[in-house]
Structures are given as C-alpha cells and as structure tokens.
C-alpha cells in the first residue's frame, strides 16, 4: 500500500494523542462482504473500514472483497464506494487511493453453490496478491432470510472449515422469535463452531455500553450496593426522536419490541445486572450475561398485558413543524397495529435482584434522543431533615449511553442558608469533558473486534435465545390475542402513551424525565 500520509484526525484536540492508537493488531485477512451493493455497506461498513485504515489499524496485508449478485467489476465497486463516501474521500484523497486499492468485487449469488465455489478460487488469488494468509471474515449484510442458507453454502464450499481462520458476522435481526432464533442457531452451528459466529448487536459497539462493565467491575464502591438491598428499581430507556424513516417495510413486520427491546435494551439490561465474571474473557462475560437473562422474566407471565404497554405515534408537532402519524407514513399500512413504543416491567429471579422491578421503554418520535440506565436507590431509612421538595429525592445513578455520554449521580446536600434543609444535586461525569475524544463509531469497534476474532461484544447463541424466550409471552399474545395488548396512540413528540405511566404508578414511581 506504499507510504501512508500522516492522518491528523482533525477532531482530535490533544495533539499528543494523534496516532497513538496502537491497539490490538488486526491480523492479515480478507473481509468478504455479502450485500456489498446494499445500503449498510456504503453507509456503515466501508466508512468504518476507511476509518480503521486511516487510524492505521488495518494490516497492509488486507483486502475487502465485496459480493452481491449484480455484475460489478472491482473498478465499479471502488468508484461506487468513492461516490458514497465522497465527503471523506475528498478530505483524504491519498489515503482513499491507497485504501481503495484493497477493495475487490466478485459477483456472487449466495444461493448458488457454484458461485460460492468460484468465490473460493477468487479468495485464493487474493491471498496470493495481498498475502492475506488465508484468514477470512465473512460479513453477511444481506436479507436475514439468507443468514442460514448463506452460512450453509459457505460451509459446503469448505470456506468455514478452519475455525481459526474463518469467521462469519451476522447482522441483526437474529430470528424473529424464540423458535426461529433457535432454528437459525442450529443451522449456523452446523456450519461452524460457535467461536466462528459473530452476531452483531450495535449497542455493544458503544463505548458507554462497554463502560457499564468497567464502571461496575473496575471500582469497588459500586458493587457492594449493586443489589436488591440498596437498589429500589432500575429504568432503561432508549428514546428516538425520528419516526420510521425509510424503513417502513422492515419496521412494519418488526415493531419496537423486536427492533429495540429484544436486542439493544436487553443487552443493556444484561450488562447492568450480570454477576462479575471471574476474568475478563469473552466466554466468562458471555456466560454471566446468558445466566442473568435466563433468570429474567416478565413481571407477570400469566397475564403479560398487565406488565406491558404498546403505543404508536399519531400526528403531532407544531404548526411550524408538523409530524406525521405512523399510519400516515409512506409504506405503512393505514390500519397498522405495529407498535412504535413499548414499555414493560421485568423481574430477575436471583439472589441479587429478587423483587427489584426493571422498567424498560423505547419509542420513536419521543421528545429527546437518548439512551440511559437509571438505578434508583432505596430511600434513607429515617428522614432527619426537611427536604426542599417535600421528601428527600432517592439517590440515582444515571449511566448515559447517548448522547452526552457519561454518568451522573444524584444525591442530597444541605440547601444553603439557615436551617437544615436538604436538596438534591447532580454530580456529573462526561466523556467529552474528561477525554475530549470522539469515541469510535459503533461499527468501527465491532468490525475491528470481529476481524480480531474477539467475540466479547457479540451475542452468543444462548444469549440470543434467552433474550427471545424472555419476550415470548408478549410475542405470542400479540400474535394470538392482540386486543389484549392494544396499541395506545401517543402524540408524536411526547413521552409515549399515558398507560405507560400507570405501569409505574402502581408502585408510586414515575419514569425519569431526562
């Protein structure tokens, strides 16, 4: 690839940081992207790879082989990617010309065995050309319908034979319920070993999600109180301001429960509640996550409608900025009963969490874009002081996943002045203020980890299955008796249907207004 220019990432403000990312080195390999002509490839994957290249984290013995059915040439693939990334390319022209020299394309129909056999030959040629040492990462960025059959054709062509040299990355969604996830797991596990399978969950690529682990297990002050004796309840929120955008086709068949809760919120739940692993090792961590998910359940499994609220945004906004209701969005069935909001209550039946309610909510067209985990602690046993707000505010630890990544702690202090009144204050840690470093986009981290063969941030088969099993009563109810879990409309730009507040009001609680 020749000489690389110094890349001064202009976003960096600490000049001593530039170029110091001598992280784990990705070994020589060929990354094969199926679905190379699709949306994800040019919007996320190639930009992430180019970023890795500019950070000098890709080895020189590296190639990307794009595959899809349309008969592009290497050149066409390169120029289309350059077009899609025109802004980055114009800023870093020489880096792009070096990077694009390692982009290749091969027309492959993943359904056609002979195409995949031919792919094997092409890969051998690339191994020789780029000294990629026979290491391959196959990224399935195709329709979920092809995940199973795609793995099978790869395996039949002998491309997954060596567990140390080949791996498969599978995009979301992994199944649409417990049964289909289990079946898909059976298929992919028959094609290779579990260590070769990397199931993507985008939330795990976020620095602050990873920070939950560090915060909990690198400090001694949290863990002793991280349990039912001290924690009264936990709220996990992932709020979006956007509506369904162009993804109506997909969203109509999925809904908020499948799109967000089963994967992202459940991963946040698992990281927040898992036991400490014995060591920082992918399997040890994933064992603990799987265990806690297996111990999780809906607050009322017999009558799931009592612990879950579904909603759908209707029109809203202001006259100046009107917001369309979900049913009027392009591509959406005007009578759609797909939920764009869901809130629910869970319990975890183990020694640490018995009896502590966990409230999860997510929705589109909410007032703020924000993800956070809020742990509310039990009240002080005796109220010695008058509180400014009537009763003292319970301590809260807030883990901000996005935006304003960081953590906050709410506690009571003496209100200034005579007397002994207390009032809450907020102690805040912000990633930006402390590090000033933009953290990597999730795909950068996840792609790098997959190519490094580090599965820590990918979901294992038992985790996926446990997560689907957890929501099975709800999915079945929506399927068999949807009237029991009605869709509550909520005005676009508000915090969801009022019924969601009732979920908490039973216990005298309220959702945090972030």
């Amino acid at each position, binding site marked *: 690839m020749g000489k690389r220019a110094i890349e001064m990432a202009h976003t960096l403000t600490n000049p001593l940081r530039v170029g110091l990312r001598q992280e784990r080195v990705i070994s020589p390999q060929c990354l094969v992207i199926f679905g190379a002509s699709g949306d994800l490839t040019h919007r996320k994957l190639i930009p992430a790879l180019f970023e890795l290249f500019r950070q000098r984290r890709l*080895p020189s013995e590296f190639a990307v082989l794009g595959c899809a059915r349309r008969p592009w040439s290497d050149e066409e693939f390169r120029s289309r990617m350059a077009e899609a990334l025109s802004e980055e390319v114009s800023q870093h022209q020489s880096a792009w010309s070096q990077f694009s020299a390692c982009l290749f394309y091969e027309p492959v129909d993943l359904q056609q065995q002979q195409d995949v056999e031919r792919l094997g030959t092409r890969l051998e040629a690339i191994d020789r050309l780029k000294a990629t040492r026979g290491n391959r990462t196959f990224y399935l960025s195709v329709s979920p319908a092809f995940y199973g059959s795609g793995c099978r054709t790869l395996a039949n062509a002998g491309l997954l034979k060596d567990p140390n040299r080949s791996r498969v990355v599978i995009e979301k969604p992994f199944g649409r319920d417990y049964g289909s996830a289990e079946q898909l797991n059976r298929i992919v596990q028959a094609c290779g070993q579990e260590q070769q399978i990397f199931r993507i969950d985008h939330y795990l690529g976020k620095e602050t999600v990873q920070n939950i682990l560090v915060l909990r297990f690198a400090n001694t002050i949290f863990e002793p109180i991280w349990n039912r004796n001290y924690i009264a309840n936990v709220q996990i929120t992932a709020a979006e301001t956007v509506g369904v955008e162009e993804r109506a086709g997909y969203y109509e068949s999925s809904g908020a429960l499948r799109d967000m809760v089963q994967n992202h919120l459940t991963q946040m739940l698992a990281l927040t509640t898992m036991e400490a692993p014995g060591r920082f090792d992918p399997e040890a961590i994933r064992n603990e996550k799987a265990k806690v998910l297996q111990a999780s359940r809906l607050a009322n499994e017999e009558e799931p409608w009592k612990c879950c609220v579904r909603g759908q945004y209707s029109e809203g906004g202001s006259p100046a900025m009107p917001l369309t209701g979900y049913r009027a969005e392009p591509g959406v069935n005007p009578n759609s009963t797909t939920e764009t909001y869901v809130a629910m209550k869970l319990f975890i039946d183990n020694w640490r969490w018995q009896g502590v309610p966990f409230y999860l909510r997510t929705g589109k067209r909410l007032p703020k874009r924000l993800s956070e985990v809020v742990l509310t602690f039990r009240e002080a046993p005796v109220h010695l002081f008058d509180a400014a707000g009537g009763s003292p505010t319970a301590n809260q630890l807030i883990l901000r996943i996005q935006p304003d990544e960081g953590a906050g702690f709410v506690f009571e202090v003496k209100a200034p002045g005579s007397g002994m009144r207390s009032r809450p204050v907020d102690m805040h840690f912000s990633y930006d203020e402390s590090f000033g470093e933009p953290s990597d986009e999730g795909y950068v981290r996840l792609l790098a980890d997959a190519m490094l063969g580090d599965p820590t941030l990918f979901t294992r088969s038992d985790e996926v299955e446990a997560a689907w099993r957890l929501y099975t009563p709800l999915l079945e109810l929506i399927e068999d008796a949807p009237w029991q879990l009605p869709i509550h409309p909520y005005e676009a730009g508000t915090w969801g249907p009022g019924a969601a507040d009732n979920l908490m009001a039973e216990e005298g609680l309220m959702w945090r207004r972030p």
Partner: protein
Amino acid sequence: MAPQLTLQAPLALPPSEVPGYLNNLWSEGLLGSAGAATFTLLVWEPSWLQQQLIRTGRIDGPISGLLNEELLEAAREAIPACGLPCSTAPTATELAWALGQQPGEHTADDLRGQFVDRAISAHRPRRLITLAPTLAADKPLETLVAAYCPLPEERSGSEDACGDVVVLRGGMGALHQGLAMLQPLIEPDLPCWVWWNGSMDESPELLEALAVPPRRLVVDSSSGDPRRCLDLLVERIATGQAVNDLNWLRLRSWRESLAMAFDPPSRQSALDRVVQLDIDMEGHHPVKGLLLAAWIADRLGWHLQSSYWIPGDEGQQGIGAEFERNDGESVQVRLMPVPVGITKTHPGALVGLRLICAPPGQAPLCVILCSESGGCMRLEAGGAASMELAEEVVPLPNESEEMEMARLLGGGHDSTNPLLAAAAPLAAKLLPQ
C-alpha cells in the same frame, strides 16, 4: 511463552543444494498450507554478548540468540568485572566488546535460528532465515535447513501451516559469501522482514545488502553509536522503506502516559504554553530520550533553535536544546544521564520526564512521569510546590524482543509509523555534533 525448537533436526547441506532442497519441500504438499502465503523473516543474529559470555565461561551454552534472565544476570555481573561504569546496560555493545578482550576458550552448541519463539511461530512464517556470525572470523560457511511446524497444540483444527528454517553460519567473510545464495531464497511476492538484531553500527555493507527496499527493516536504535543509529534511521526512513525501531516501540508507555495526562480538555490549552521539558535517562545512550523529546516537539509544533552538550556527573554529558513555540516563546529542553543502581536491559532507558507549562493567568502546571522501577527525585525537587502537579507512574513494558517482533509481524507495519518518521530526523538534529 517458551521458545520452541524446530521439530525436525536441521540438515546440514552444501549451500548450493539448499534452494533445490527447499523447492522440493514446498512442491511436496506444503504449498497448500497456510504458511505458504505469509512472509519471510530474515534475522541478523550476531549474539556477540551471548557468545562472549559463553566463551569466557560466564554462562553455559547453547548459543540460542535469545536474551534470557540468566544471560542478563551474567552480563550485569561482568560489567564491573570489565571495568565499565555501573550505568552500563547489560546489552550495551561496550560490554560485548570488553568481554572480547578477556581470555577464554569455552565452546557450546550453536542453535541460533533453530529456536522459534511461539509468538513468532504463531504467525507461521513461510521462511525464517538466520544469519549467525561466529566469533572466529575465518569459519567457513555452514548452511542448515529444516522444515518447521508449530507444535500440535498451536495448530488449528486442520492439518496446518508449516514453514521452513534456513541458517547461514560462519565467520564474517563466509557470511558475505553466503549473501549470493540468499536472494533466491526470498519469495519475491511475499513480504520480507529484515530484523537487524545487533548493533546498528556494525557491518554496514551487510545491512545495506540485506535491507533493500521494499523489505521491511526492524532495528534497535539503543544498540550502536547514537549518531550512527539516528543517521541510519533517518536515511532509511527517507528512502520510503518501512522502518520499525524497537527502541521507539519501547517508548509506547511513555507516549501513552503523557498523552493521558493531557486528555482532559481543560488541560489541553496548557500544551500551547510549555516552557520546559526535562528528561532523565540511564547511562549515556541518549537516543531513546531524544526520540521522546523529538516526538513531543514535533507534536506541539516547536522549532529547534539550538542544541548543545551539558557537562554532567562522572564525566557523562547531558544534552540541552532550545526550541521556539508557535507563539515565538522559547522552550528549554534538557536530557540528563542520571546514576541508577541497576540498569534496565537496554541502554538509555528513561527514568523520568517533567513538562512544565505556564498558561497565562493560571498557576503553572507541572506534569511528572516516573518509570515504575525508580524514583525521579531529581525532577520532583525544587520549585514544584507552587504549581499544579500531575504525577504518573509509567508502567514498565515487560515484553521480550520476540514479542515485540511478533507484534510487528502481526500486520499493519508496511510503512514507517508517521510519528517515528517525524521524530527521527528531529532527534538527529537534537543530538549535538
């Protein structure tokens, strides 16, 4: 990771038969193996220190080319015995030279090139070529070859990767002769690494002949005359060849710790207001300290005005320099050798660093980094009381050369690291004539 011996006993062949033998080996089925498309690693392995310690009876053989604890201990004991200053590092070239003046006729098996560190073998080199010069300058050329396979527990599921090992052994004259047979042994389509695992100022013609671009060169600028080390680095980087310097890589934790001290945005403005930089180092080999100072100066955009020698303790000289910041203010830089009880393995290891910033209208900020193993009292003394003080301990990297080398072989090093490419020429200018 314990080094491991080639599984096959190496076969001594006449040099002329080596290429043919290896071609046969590869055509008989190895070609499909994963080692087929990796790289060639060519190692210059003089191991003078080990050879001299063995010859003078200070350690037992075999000659392995590896730096182990026993060897380092014997070397440390030999330092005073050879009349060298106690700040001499065990791997300093002076020690091997001084041992060479001492009597001794002990001999040992020479297994250089036949030990493959697992960290390296894990990358499955297609071919490992070792040049092993002997103390006796007139020894004729011997060539050894062996097929090499990782131990079963390292192998992945399938039948797997093998490579081969070639050793060229003999006196310097013989090795020069052997150069001619090397070229055909290096697969032209695969990357080739040349690891100059010896002093940078010996056998310049041999280095010249081995390290031709686009081969990737790995050197250690803590070994050899400082001027020659820096000039060679600069010259090689200028050719566009990929140059990796183990001495620079060993600075990793210092660079990281210093960057960390300035991560909080509230501190970053202080970086524009540095007035003084002090670096304390072991012994009199200043290259490591110079590279660190040059990196800082380059990152902060300082311009070198002058550099000069500073007389120090025990006749050891320090280096002073004046830089100009972008705003025209001046920055004073000092690198001083300091006495230490036990030296680290490589010459010129860093003891401490102090960076003083004077932002207008604020208390001065003083950042002190100390190496884990020693205090840096000199830097902590004097005047720091009125400043905002930030002290960090820099962890000692605890990795063998082979681990460091394995990391390079892991990939991503086809060009010189741009930070090194910028720091090396400045370091060369910082070293006073």
